[in-house]
């Protein structure tokens, strides 16, 4: 058991490119922290620096109060589960799990006790004598976890452990990992690009982009109070809608009409000219099914496509964005590994809504959940800092840089 402190960690490769740039994250003892971001954001590099498979260019890595920058992986007493499991195919499941203990020269009795205990926890008892080659993906995954939990490691590190499993198994293993971590109460750092895993598993989530830490907060804080445009677009599915907006007094002019916001939000966004408004799909609703007592604004728009999913529906409403905003949104899409398609509004509707394709519908929007972003810097102007965890200062610079 140990806390992991990353202090201004930098990883620069031979060509001078910083894969990880000045990242500081404190992982408390027993905490489950997720590193998440699109591919190439440096999350795996950061994890490999914690475990010692990558050298640290600058900064300090402190595990359990000890600076480990110059220690070899085997001296750090960490357990890691690799993306492709990295099981030893020439050894049986039993010997795979026992491998770290054998290296530590544990006697046979201790080895047997610990391996049996780990296999019981992971329900691998009937597979102990088999070779990894004969196991299914989920079983291999469990063997890899067994190899990690069998030692009394100071922390667990997971490098996208579920990305090779099919969707159903992934869900099962996700809850399995969560249960195991709670039971063992061990410090865990988990790398993923899957936001479902990030949201469901983590005590706190660190969002990275191009080697820079964007925001470190609980899943709830990230979702409700994204620090900048990137985090707002990355967290949530379907993603947050971004619309051009101009604030005059307490009213915000959107492509579909004008809505009212609270005075304190309006004050923070005053005199900034053209802004980007971020509204999550579920903040919208079919005006005809909304209780009239709920506060909000309504507007009329022609619905292009409706996807009905049973309990809910999504309506798509295309709109034209001015060039400044469009450029920023295209850049955002590139950062998110996506491709800029048409600018359209995704509206979440109740399953009972009867809006059909081609209808001109009256849409209600809960403006208290609207965020306003500065198009130049991507900064969230209306963020509630008390409930947003840590927003990295470095990340509020212009994302296009």
């Amino acid at each position, binding site marked *: 058991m140990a806390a992991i402190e990353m202090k201004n960690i930098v990883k620069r490769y031979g060509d001078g490119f910083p894969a990880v740039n000045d990242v500081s994250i404190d992982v408390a003892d027993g905490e489950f922290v997720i590193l998440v971001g699109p591919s190439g954001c440096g999350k795996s590099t950061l994890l490999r620096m914690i*475990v*010692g*498979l990558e050298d640290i260019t600058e900064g300090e890595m402190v595990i359990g109060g000890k600076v480990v920058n110059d220690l*070899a*992986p*085997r001296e750090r007493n*960490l*357990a*890691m589960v*690799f*993306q*492709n*499991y*990295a*099981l*030893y*195919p*020439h050894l049986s499941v039993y010997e795979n799990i026992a*491998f*770290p203990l054998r*290296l*530590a020269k544990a006697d046979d009795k201790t080895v047997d006790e610990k391996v049996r205990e780990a296999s019981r926890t992971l329900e691998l008892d009937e597979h102990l004598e088999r*070779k*990894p*080659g*004969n*196991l299914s*993906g989920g079983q*291999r995954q469990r063997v890899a976890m067994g*190899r990690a939990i069998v*030692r009394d490691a100071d922390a667990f590190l997971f490098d996208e452990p579920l990305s*090779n499993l099919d969707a159903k198994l992934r869900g099962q293993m996700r809850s399995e990992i969560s249960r195991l971590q709670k039971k063992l109460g061990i410090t865990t750092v988990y790398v993923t690009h899957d936001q479902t895993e990030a949201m469901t598993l983590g005590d706190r989530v660190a969002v990275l982009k191009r080697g820079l830490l964007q925001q470190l907060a609980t899943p709830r804080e990230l979702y409700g109070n994204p620090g900048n445009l990137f985090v707002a677009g990355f967290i949530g599915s379907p993603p947050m809608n971004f619309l051009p907006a101009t604030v005059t007094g307490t009213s915000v002019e959107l492509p579909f009409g004008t809505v009212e916001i609270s005075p304190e939000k309006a004050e923070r966004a005053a005199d900034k000219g053209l802004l980007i408004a971020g509204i999550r799909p579920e903040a919208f609703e079919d005006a005809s099914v909304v209780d009239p007592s709920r506060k909000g604004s309504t507007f009329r728009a022609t619905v292009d496509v409706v996807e009905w999913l049973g309990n809910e529906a999504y309506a798509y409403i295309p709109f034209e964005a001015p060039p400044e905003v469009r450029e920023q949104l295209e850049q955002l899409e590139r950062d998110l590994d996506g491709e800029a398609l048409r600018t359209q509004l995704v509206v979440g509707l109740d399953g009972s809504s009867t809006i059909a394709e081609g209808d001109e519908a009256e849409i209600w929007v809960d403006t208290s959940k609207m965020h306003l972003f500065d198009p130049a810097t991507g900064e969230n102007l209306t963020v509630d800092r008390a409930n947003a965890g840590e927003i990295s200062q470095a990340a509020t610079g212009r994302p296009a840089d």
Partner: protein
Amino acid sequence: MRQKIGTVIGCALILAWCLLPVAWIISLSFKSQTAITNGSPGFLPASGDSAGWQNYQDVLDNDQFRRAIINSVGISLIATALSVIIATLAAYAIARLEFQGKKFVLTTALAIAMFPVVSLVGPLFDMWRTFGLYDTWPGLIIPYMSFTLPLAIWTLSAFFREIPWEMEQAAQVDGATSWQAFRKVIVPLAAPGVFTAAILTFFFAWNDFVFGISLTSTERARPIPAALSFFVGSDPFNRPASLLAAGAVVSTIPIIVIVLIFQRKIVAGLTSGAVKG
């Protein structure tokens, strides 16, 4: 069905083509010397022509031959062991490390392997005489190693490249030193490659004739192929064909044994299951 019959016939033809000389050698080795001198055309010895195990008995009783077997086994095994050990380490470095002159090492190795053996015999003969390596075991082990190392390095580095690097990293995280990770994880996984290299090296050393005959002069280091060619019975004008046949058969046996032992180890796809597959 027709295709199956075709396959069977094809295999039978190839087998007959390959094994007929072997069968004939075996047949000869069971005939008596006089029967061969007088002409004995049948595959099976005619009545009264059979020598039984006498030829084998004579061969094994022959000091010169026994000595040659010891030389061959010793030299081949030592050359194989050294070659495989050095090739394993070299191939690992080539597969894993980025260093200057990596390409140079690989191409030089290949160039050496392409050198005609005969062209080196003369210089080696002179050199070994000066160094005092002429007619010694090391005098043969060294050329065998240098000719088999390139092939072994190429084979093994291909095997090492196929082993996911994560395996080694996982071992290091699990608490292994680099050497432990290499010995306990990488080498077992590369075992098929190691055995392939071992077989190739052993073949080369065992079957070599040119070095064997040129770099030795006495029984001190002369290997079997050379010894067989010098194997003259009591009458230099009438070489003991049946004894030679028995000697040839005996000298084939170690090769067969080695192949059978190593073949079990050459199981393709040993790494399956290491990673998602």
